[in-house]
């Protein structure tokens, strides 16, 4: 059945990428337990990398939380879109909320019937959850076993992961322009204000550029 096949291939591919997160987290001095807790509890790739990336850049926890939360707002909008299809209530709503991410939403919305959409959501959500967490643990243990993160290139794995997440979003001229401005603004502010704030300041650029059609 193709929903199952789609869900499985997305789950394993995206899940495997959890090893990059586990390794990056440990390279940024998070413990293996903290890396695993982020994957179990936060469970949203870009937001998890943001927590690690902001702390690695010397930002405060509040800054890390704010950046990660702003990156996670889209999950709320996914929920808004999916809730009428999934017909959620009670405990089921809690479980569905936790696994509402890019991939479960993407596979669900790619289906043609409502029943296939529900299957796509649950299969992909659970599939990614399981593999993402297993690979996070593997990556974190792997990074813990090796010594200096720079010697293994783990310091470049974090921005490369961000780039991999950004790439598919650069779909039009507007997003390219925004990306360019954000890079310039973040680097211009870096020497002058506390670490972490240059990153979150770029939210303003998204508001300015998104204001007009």
């Amino acid at each position: 059945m193709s929903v199952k096949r789609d869900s499985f291939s997305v789950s394993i591919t995206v899940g495997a990428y959890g090893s990059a997160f586990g390794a990056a987290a440990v390279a940024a001095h998070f413990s293996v337990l903290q890396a695993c807790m982020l994957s179990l509890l936060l469970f949203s790739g870009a937001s998890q990398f943001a927590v690690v990336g902001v702390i690695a850049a010397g930002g405060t926890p509040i800054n890390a939380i704010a950046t990660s939360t702003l990156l996670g707002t889209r999950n709320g909008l996914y929920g808004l879109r999916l809730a009428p299809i999934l017909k959620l209530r009670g405990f089921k709503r809690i479980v569905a909320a936790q696994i509402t991410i890019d991939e479960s939403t993407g596979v669900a919305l790619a289906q043609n019937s409502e029943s296939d959409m529900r299957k796509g959501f649950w299969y992909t959500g659970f599939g990614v959850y399981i593999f993402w967490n297993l690979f996070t643990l593997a990556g974190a243990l792997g990074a813990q076993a090796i010594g200096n993160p720079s010697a293994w290139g783990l310091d470049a794995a974090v921005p490369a992961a961000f780039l991999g997440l950004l790439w598919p979003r650069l779909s039009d001229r507007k997003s390219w322009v925004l990306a360019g401005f954000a890079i310039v603004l973040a680097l211009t502010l870096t020497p002058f204000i506390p670490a972490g704030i240059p990153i979150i300041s770029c939210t303003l650029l998204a508001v300015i550029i998104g204001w007009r059609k």
Partner: protein
Amino acid sequence: MSAFWIAVIGSSALAFAIKFIGASVPQTFLSNPRILRINTLIPVALLSALIAVNTFANKTQLALDNRALGMAAAVVLLIAKAPFPVVVIGAAMTSALAYRYI
């Protein structure tokens, strides 16, 4: 509680709150096109800033080092349509080689 734990627990709690609210509020809420447009642009702005800072800065100092070469490799791999894990591993390997030999 350490800064790391505060970041882990705080961000996890808010992430779940957003997901749960999204699954609970009526659909008409937040469906203003301007909010939707800004919301799709926020990840672009934040991810770009995160890339810049994690590649070209150490805390509050700008830096050009092995990470920049790693990122150059990542860009080449993405243009060549390489899959996600290959991009990350390619960037890490390039950066590690640069760290060792430059």
